[in-house]
């Protein structure tokens, strides 16, 4: 199964495609026999000794044995540990309700901010943007957010300051921006100095020195979705030369 999976990395697969386990014919006598374990990411399901594809997209692989489907969907489905940009919608007692663009609203405790105590409540109003991390994300339970890491530090999370622009892009583009050696991000870095917050739920927040530049960056990022790397680089160089 592992070899068939590896051979098809980078191919477009559809729901209903499956990989079945076929035992190796040859047994190595020198190396110890180790059962191959495949880790399934989003879009792949294990059923018995078969692996089923349940989303359309491109099959991706990470060493050693992690596989997932890269799918360009627009609706966010929450997962534990992911950081998102949310909007506070309700303030009730000791929890805030946060809209993150998923199927239900997440709860955010007022104690889940850096330096917050029962006496010292964080200053959060309805309509504020928060950058937070999922600590509970389960299909059967209410999702729960926190603005602190496990060490009690904010690590860049918390309530947003004034200014800046919030806009939406596809989840696929967000993942491309967040990948360790993102070409889009390195291209963007050469344009203007700016602050960019990327939420895994497809929301981006940008702030730079002027409104004009902020809008240019927002438009560039939104148009990145439907461009090949070549077209993108061409557009970025044109902007750099002052076409806008």
């Amino acid at each position: 199964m592992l070899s068939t999976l590896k051979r098809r990395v980078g191919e477009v697969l559809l729901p209903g495609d499956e990989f079945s386990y076929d035992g190796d014919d040859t047994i190595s006598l020198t190396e110890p026999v180790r059962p191959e374990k495949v880790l399934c990411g989003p879009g792949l399901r294990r059923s018995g000794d078969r692996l089923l594809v349940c989303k359309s997209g491109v099959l991706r692989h990470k060493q050693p044995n992690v596989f997932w489907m890269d799918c360009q969907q627009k609706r966010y489905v929450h997962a534990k540990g992911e950081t998102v940009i949310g909007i506070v919608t309700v303030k009730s007692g000791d929890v805030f309700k946060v809209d993150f663009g998923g199927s239900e609203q997440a709860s955010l405790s007022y104690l889940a901010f850096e330096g917050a105590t029962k006496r010292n409540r964080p200053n959060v109003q309805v309509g504020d943007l928060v950058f937070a991390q999922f600590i509970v994300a389960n299909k059967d339970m209410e999702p729960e957010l926190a603005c602190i890491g496990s060490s009690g530090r904010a690590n860049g999370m918390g309530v947003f300051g004034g200014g800046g622009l919030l806009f939406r892009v596809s989840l696929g583009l967000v993942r491309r921006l967040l990948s360790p050696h993102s070409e889009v991000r390195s291209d963007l870095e050469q344009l203007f100095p700016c602050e960019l917050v990327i939420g895994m739920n497809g929301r981006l927040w940008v702030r730079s020195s002027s409104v004009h530049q902020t809008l240019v960056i927002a438009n560039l990022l939104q148009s990145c979705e439907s461009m090949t790397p070549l077209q993108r680089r061409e557009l970025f160089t044109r902007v750099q030369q002052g076409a806008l």
Partner: protein
Amino acid sequence: MAVMEARCSSSVMLREFACEQNFLSQPDGSASFVHGDTSVYAGVYGPAEVKVSKEIYDRATLEVLIQPKVGLPGVRERSQEQCVRETCEASLLLSLHPRSSLTLILQVLHDDGSLLSCLLNAACMSLMDAGLPMSCLFCGVTCAIDADGQIITDPTAAQEKESRALMTFAIDSKKHNVLMTSTKGSFSVNELQQCIAVSQKASEKLFQFYRDSVRRRYSKTL
């Protein structure tokens, strides 16, 4: 049976079909599907928040709405909605998104025969575009039996009117099983079997087309 299939293989004729995915900005998934002159737009919203009255504790609620070209949806649309909904429920893995709602809206742009199969194909493409977990794909094929007993696949409105019987099948992509049937008119058991065999042959073309159009969609991110 084998003979029948061999005979069918040469006679599968479908009108030209075309599809575009992700062409609407607001819905989470969208697709347009065209069979000859029949054309349908589909939009999917979800998984989203669900009304308490429609909440199901262990799976998502799927709602299908069909908007006709003119006027308000009537009994005919309701029965089509039910056919589409039950087919979608069979292929979607709804238990992965409990207590949420999925809404599929189908807008008929023009009906020139084989409308139900076009609706099914548009529904499948839009669900796939929305990235909803599915166990398999499905497609719709319409067959008409004319006065001489000839089977016509993907009939036009004029051919439908002259036909003795009209059948629509939803077929899954894994084993080419029949998921849903909707029939009109009179026909023998043998004719039904023949039509199923023809539709299964035709479905292979459609699934190949699905694969090509999704591949084209992802060509820029490969």
